[in-house]
């Protein structure tokens, strides 16, 4: 998990005091993580954008009206909001959304691919998109735990609390998620090179 020089709770304090720049920093810090988590649930970029906006609006309303509870951590809290909104979206629509195929063009602009060849950039993009596709194919309960652990940096205790299950259930779901995903990844020849990615 990333460590920042100014903590989230400090930024929230500053934001409460009226420093909009502190909120801007919070948004900048967490937007990609929250957006990716929402996207992996709703599987549609337009809907994910709307839900991200709605998530942050709830955050603004809660903090500015003095209802934010400082006891909890900011990221798990906002992730719970995002998760609940995504699940509500499903309930309202009463259907599983159409799987969107990705071209990846606009979403990889934060990466520095400058030293890679065009071919290797394309391979990376394809692999990242395929991985997201495989995650989306997991059973919902498994996908939820995996997404929260990997994309939201939540501990298993936090995941268990957020989803209303025991830690053992969360751990069990994660175990099956990893085993299933590994099978899928091997089938699609997604691997990692230990020489490039040392322990």
């Amino acid at each position, binding site marked *: 998990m990333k460590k920042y020089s100014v903590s989230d709770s400090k930024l929230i304090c500053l934001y409460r005091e009226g420093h909009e720049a502190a909120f801007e920093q919070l948004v900048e810090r967490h937007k990609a993580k929250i*957006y990716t988590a929402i996207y992996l649930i709703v599987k549609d970029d337009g809907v994910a954008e709307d839900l991200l906006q709605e998530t942050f609006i709830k955050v603004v309303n809660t903090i500015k009206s003095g209802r934010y509870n400082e006891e909890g951590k900011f990221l798990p809290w906002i992730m719970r909001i995002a998760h609940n909104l995504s699940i509500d979206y499903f309930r309202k629509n009463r259907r599983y959304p159409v799987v969107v195929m990705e071209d990846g063009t606009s979403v990889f602009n934060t990466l520095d691919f400058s030293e890679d060849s065009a071919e290797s950039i394309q391979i990376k993009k394809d692999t990242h998109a395929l991985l997201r596709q495989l995650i989306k194919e997991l059973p919902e309960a498994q996908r939820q735990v995996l997404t929260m652990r990997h994309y939201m940096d939540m501990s298993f205790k936090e995941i268990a609390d957020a989803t209303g299950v025991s830690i053992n259930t969360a751990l069990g779901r994660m175990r099956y998620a990893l085993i299933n995903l590994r099978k899928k990844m091997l089938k699609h020849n997604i691997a990692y090179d230990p020489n490039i990615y040392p322990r």
Partner: protein
Amino acid sequence: MIQTFTLDDVVRYVYHEMSSQEAEKMKEALLFDTELMDLYQQLRSAKKMIECNSIYLEPSQSTIDKVLEYSKEYELQVTSQ
């Protein structure tokens, strides 16, 4: 004596959610329990594959601008209601 661990404990070990003492005991248990070791290798390899291939998606700047604008205008909205 070697401590008995469950399959879910292996998940906690892979994600570093164990105390250092417990992790030491797990290391030892893995050497003697082939089922645990097999699971450990599978989980670790899957975790690495995700970490090496994961990437965060970026929302559009217009969405972020709307959020920041909403925050700036919050007081105005509340007082005008």
